[in-house]
């Protein structure tokens, strides 16, 4: 796999080009796959405002050099962010932040909580235990994601994990 050389034409080695606002770290004991950790850190930075649309994500080569991880992993993380619509790659330049994570306003959040509680009560009455609820949720989540992907609307949706424990 030939990784696109980012900024190869414009800046040389050692030249202080635009440095990305964030710096990645790895938690090897967390059990979370490496690429997912990178994705989560970008989303976290977006939520907290460290990253704004137009900012450049760290160059793959720099991430690799500082964390000593496989470039494919970084590539995968950035591709995931692109799929979620949070980032976009510019050929020869790098990967840039495209959108922020939509912040759901507090009253909206409270309303969603209430609806969810109601649903859970209904499911419990129907005889669905906790594992069943989770399985059902994952299944519907998958369908929803697929339908959104085909409709072409990407929106940051938070971490996605299979088999939420």
């Amino acid at each position, binding site marked *: *796999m*030939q*990784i696109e*050389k980012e900024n190869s034409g414009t800046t040389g*080695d050692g030249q202080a080009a635009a440095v990305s606002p964030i710096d990645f770290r*790895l938690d*090897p004991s967390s*059990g979370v*796959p*490496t690429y997912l950790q990178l994705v989560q850190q970008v989303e976290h930075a977006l939520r907290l405002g460290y990253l704004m649309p137009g900012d450049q994500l760290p160059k*793959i*080569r720099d991430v*690799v*050099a*500082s*964390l*000593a*991880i*496989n*470039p*494919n*992993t970084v590539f995968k993380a950035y591709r995931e962010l692109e799929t979620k619509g949070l980032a976009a790659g510019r050929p020869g330049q790098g990967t840039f932040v495209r959108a922020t994570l939509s912040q759901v306003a507090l009253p909206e959040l409270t309303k969603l909580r209430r609806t969810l509680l109601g649903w859970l009560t209904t499911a419990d009455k129907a005889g669905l235990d906790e*594992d069943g609820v989770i*399985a059902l949720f994952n299944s519907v989540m998958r369908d929803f994601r697929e339908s959104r992907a085909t409709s072409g609307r990407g929106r940051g949706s938070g971490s996605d994990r*299979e*088999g939420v*424990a």
Partner: protein
Amino acid sequence: MNVVETHRLGKSYGRTWALRDCTLAIPAGHVTALVGPNGAGKTTLLNLVVGLAVPTEGEVAVLGGRAAGSPAALDGIAFVAQDTPLYRSLTADDLLHMTRNLNRHFDRSYARGRLTELGIPLRRRAAKLSGGQQAQLALTLALARHPRLLVLDEPMAMLDPLARHDFIAMVMTAVADDGVSVVFSSHVLTELERVADHLILLSGGRVQVAGEVDDLLASHRVLTGPTAEIDRYVDRLDIVHARRGAAQANLLVRTSATTDAAPPGWRAHPVGLEELALAYLREPGAAALPGPTRGDNIEPLGVTP
């Protein structure tokens, strides 16, 4: 293109088989970890790949069909052996000079640049460098040849954590810059997941697991549930390794891509690479091998010498 392709490769020393019936295909553009306990045959396999040893049976081809050890193969493969042997009385400068004289392609400015970055003095004898510096010097000499395939035989065994980190970072940077394929052997499992995207597990001279890390992780699950129910599901589940407590058990199972539903009452978790490797190493009889990666498994490799 497959950077390494073997067909029923075997190597014996006297009556002992260090490697037997090894059939592999390692695609280009990957960082492949060759994992296994000591004596599993890792060094033997790597020696066969770089042409230091000759097969007793079977075949090995590299870089898309070239015979291992042939001039075409030697040109495109750089090897750093265990304990990174260097000429102790020569300086880094001498070694650069020597490597340039021994190879068609050698990027002297790259080598000089990296050594300066790493703070390795050019005029000090190799014997006076630290273990970490020696390893990085050996790696620099290898990478300056801009090989298509970099083969590393446990080069980090003697390095402290910081030196290990720098060593891996240098290799990964070369992968990012050059697209070089890497095959490295290790008996340390903890770093694997963030470095390797292809895994080969060797045990007792035989290949136990071979495949892309993503595929392996996607096709295995850990099921947690009551020990008493294991027998009920033994036929339905492809159990690789079972760990039983008195009441609760963890089963490492292999699943097909579509089914990930755990039996009722059981919970399914994703499995990490280290856990997967350990489980297979504990079960010598189990194997996870990909299907045929070439059209015809029976024909010889048609190696170009």
